[in-house]
């Protein structure tokens, strides 16, 4: 009998020890009242001494971000704890910390994109302080509007853009002499070249959803989305709109269904940006919307022949963004240090590196695009679009409508087969 009890007790203790391992840390909280001077912020940041930066992205982003850390640490003497993962995991962590009433967490600066930011804001896990007006480098932002909105979602200054991703039309230079220069020509081109156009499943790749939202803006007029900005998001407006025939003679769903008939493998959508560019690389398709950075990474990896790569922005435009960026969680222990790190990430040096080292993404601050070495790089590397085609006009994606589009698309277009 004693033997039994010993085994039993030992196992219970073991399991109890394993399960009961929650950790909490303590720290300072940031400014609460009036906006402090930048010198004060830097000083306080140095006192805090460390900052935890949570980021997501592809391998090339990780490598670039990691390369920045030693430089920042050297310059400010603030230790950076870099954590690379997925944005939904970060969001979930914050949500539960909030629910558990944890006032001091361990995330200081989170790199994410518009939709998760919006979810975080609505759940009350964002530090509601207009710190985008505190950090000096944010004054150089390409458009002051980006300090108030990301993908047209209001940020109230609590979100600072960091990288400007851009989708363009990628076409096979060897096979296609006259790609459709404007959205008006797209349908005709696809019909004239059946089976040679594709766009990726918008739920698995951003080039797909950026394509959809830009297309819908072209169909119904950008104003329809622009005017809704700042107003509460109206789901019904979207659903109704996309079923009505717009000035171009199509409803959105009607256009996509018509397009589908002439696309590569009607009814098939590549699962993600990479699957789409893989088809392009194999010569299966000749035209598709694609991210510049994905194109860049495929060329760098020796997977895509640079000689067939042609990139351009169709007229009137392809939406700029996402302008993925940074927010500080409500329970960040090192808010000053987070602001100093964010400021560093917006510095001319780091933003230039986005073009030259990371490649395939644009800077979010002015004073970079006109540097001779940047102009030279954009001219010579195959994975860029001409600079003037992205600077004017700076159309933006409408995040919430885009999110709705993604969900409806699966039901209306992917399922229509």
């Amino acid at each position, binding site marked *: 009998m004693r033997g039994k009890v010993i085994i039993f007790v030992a196992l219970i203790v073991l399991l109890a020890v394993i399960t009961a*391992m929650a950790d909490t840390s303590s720290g300072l909280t940031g400014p609460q009242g009036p906006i402090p001077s930048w010198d004060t912020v830097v000083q306080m940041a140095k006192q805090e001494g460390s900052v935890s930066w949570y980021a997501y992205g592809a391998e090339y982003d990780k490598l670039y971000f990691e390369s920045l850390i030693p430089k920042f640490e050297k310059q400010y003497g603030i230790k950076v704890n870099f954590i690379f993962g997925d944005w939904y995991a970060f969001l979930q962590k914050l*949500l*539960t910390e909030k*629910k*558990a009433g944890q006032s001091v967490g361990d995330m200081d600066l989170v790199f994410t994109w518009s939709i998760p930011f919006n979810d975080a804001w609505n759940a009350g896990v964002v530090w509601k302080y207009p710190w985008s007006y505190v950090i000096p480098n944010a004054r150089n932002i390409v458009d002051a509007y980006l300090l108030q909105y990301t993908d047209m979602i209001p940020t109230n200054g609590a979100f600072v853009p960091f990288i400007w991703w851009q989708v363009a039309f990628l076409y096979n230079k060897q096979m296609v002499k006259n790609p459709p220069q404007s959205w008006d020509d797209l349908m005709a081109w696809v019909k004239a070249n059946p089976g040679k156009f594709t766009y990726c499943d918008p739920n698995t790749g951003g080039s797909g959803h950026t394509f959809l939202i830009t297309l819908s803006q072209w169909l119904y007029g950008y104003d329809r989305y622009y005017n809704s900005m700042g107003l509460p998001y109206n789901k019904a407006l979207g659903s109704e709109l996309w079923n009505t025939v717009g000035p171009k003679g199509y409803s959105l769903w009607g256009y996509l269904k018509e397009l589908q008939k002439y696309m590569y493998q009607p009814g098939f959508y590549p699962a993600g940006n990479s699957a789409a560019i*893989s088809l392009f690389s194999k010569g299966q398709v000749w035209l598709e919307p694609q991210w510049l950075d994905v194109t860049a990474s495929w060329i760098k990896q020796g*997977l895509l022949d640079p000689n067939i790569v042609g990139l351009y922005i169709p007229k009137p435009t392809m939406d700029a963004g996402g302008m993925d960026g940074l927010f500080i969680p409500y329970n960040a222990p090192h808010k000053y240090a987070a602001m100093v790190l964010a400021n560093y990430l917006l510095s001319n040096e780091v933003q230039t590196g986005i073009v030259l080292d990371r490649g395939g993404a644009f800077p979010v601050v002015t004073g970079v695009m006109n540097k001779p070495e940047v102009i030279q790089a954009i001219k010579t590397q195959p994975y860029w679009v001409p600079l003037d085609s992205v600077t004017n006009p700076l159309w933006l994606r409408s995040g919430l409508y885009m999110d709705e589009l993604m969900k409806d698309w699966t039901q209306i277009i992917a399922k229509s087969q």
Partner: protein
Amino acid sequence: MKRISISIVSVAMVLIIFFPVFVIFEWAFSTIWYGTSLFPTQLGFRSFIQVIQAGLGKSLILSFTIAPLVVLFSALISIPAAYIIGTKDIKSKKLIENLFLIPLIVPPIVSGIGILSIYTQLGLIGNYMAIVLVHMIGATPYMFRSVEASFESIDPSIEEAARVLGATRLRTILRIYLPLVTPGLLSGSVFAFSWSLNEFLLTLLLGLPNIVTLPVFLYRYVGGYYISPGPASAISVFLIVPSLFIVYLMEKYIKSEYVAGAGIKG
């Protein structure tokens, strides 16, 4: 006739099994391979260097330290249960055996989203030991079944004899049974180990950002934001080579029917 069918089956088998493995090696060593060409146009070690720099070593260490712990703990909780079910006549034996199958039947994503709630609440997301526990969910049934089968085959009079000679039950278990169930324990360990090494979904859901085991590390290159065939294949090579070694060892030392349990792992 017989000759021909033997050759056909053998050749088909080798082709079907090695074709995917071959392609993985091809990708791992290619540095330039445009989609239009049939073979890589340039070979090299770039992908290997890339994954090593990206932290393959850390993932290897994580995977190969978590798996033994999973084996150890699942053995610890399975042995008492297997002992009582395997050597004694108890009520509802069949029911209990069937209950052990339920963790294998319920899709991992289902328990996963429930555990997600609990772990986030307890702050256990990304916790090392918490991941060990999660891996044990699927590993324990295999461990239990193998060990139980071993207990089952032991002559029940052995225990009586030992008890008559004055040994306590704990002593009997340790001294008499344990050596006899070692084969079952071994094959159970192989299943548990392989389960843990392969576990992907729950580790992805509950382990990020700290716990990047090999499958999760691999996922970054095949299912994440980009598909990068080169690095993904390089990681696969690191996984396939030891696997081939295990196949060889198993063929040599363990009855192959025991290996069957390793089949469920996704």
